């Protein structure tokens, strides 16, 4: 699940999101495991 959220954030250029800590803990772990920050969208 964190992977699909991370992909969605990067693909859609999401800059603001709201959610509960459990979700963000998983998301942070996902990016830390990959050893990188969320990619910034270069879109419009």
């Amino acid at each position, binding site marked *: 699940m964190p992977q699909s959220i991370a992909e969605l954030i990067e693909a859609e250029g999401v800059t603001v999101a709201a959610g509960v800590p459990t979700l963000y803990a998983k998301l*942070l772990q996902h990016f830390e495991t990959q050893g990188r920050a969320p990619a910034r969208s270069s879109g419009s």
Partner: protein
Amino acid sequence: MIEGFERLGVSVKHVWGMTETSPCGTSPQPSRATATLSRQHQLRRKISQGQPIYGVDVKIADERGNEIPRDGTSSGRFMVRGPWVISGYYRDDKPLLEDGWFNTGDLATIDADNYIQLTDRAKDVIKSGGEWISSIDVENLAMGCPGVAEAAVIGHSHPQWEERPLLVVVPTASNAATARSIIAFLEGKIAKWWIPTISSSSMR
């Protein structure tokens, strides 16, 4: 968690609330005064529950409902009221509010600048040797330990100390923490008698 995201260049805004406060209740508001504080102090404010948002009143109270001073150290039952705070549960006639205030079930301190810090769920506080241990404080620290993915602290009964804290950990898939590394991480950050027993299914 907030520090972790900020290291990745993502800024975090923390909001406290519950279904019963539908749902936003408090949030740390960035201010000019905050911007003048040290980084460490700014972070402390950022990870606190913040200040009540417009329309919400808060107080901390003792068992009888008397307000406790907002000195940042005295802790009491965290109570809220406001137009979008619950007045009663659906199809439940039991009176819920105390003098118009909803008891959140959390314990908190409030400082002179109105910053709220939840210290524990009232029913999660661990009593050890007659003294209180905040399960949340230990959980939050353990979550900051490298190699820990998830952490929870529960009280388990102990013949001598009444209760002792037990830390249950899910280690990360790579570079997993060990019981020894967690204890080394906690040492010096909390009192010695707060150091929990550690349990994990996949840890040595």
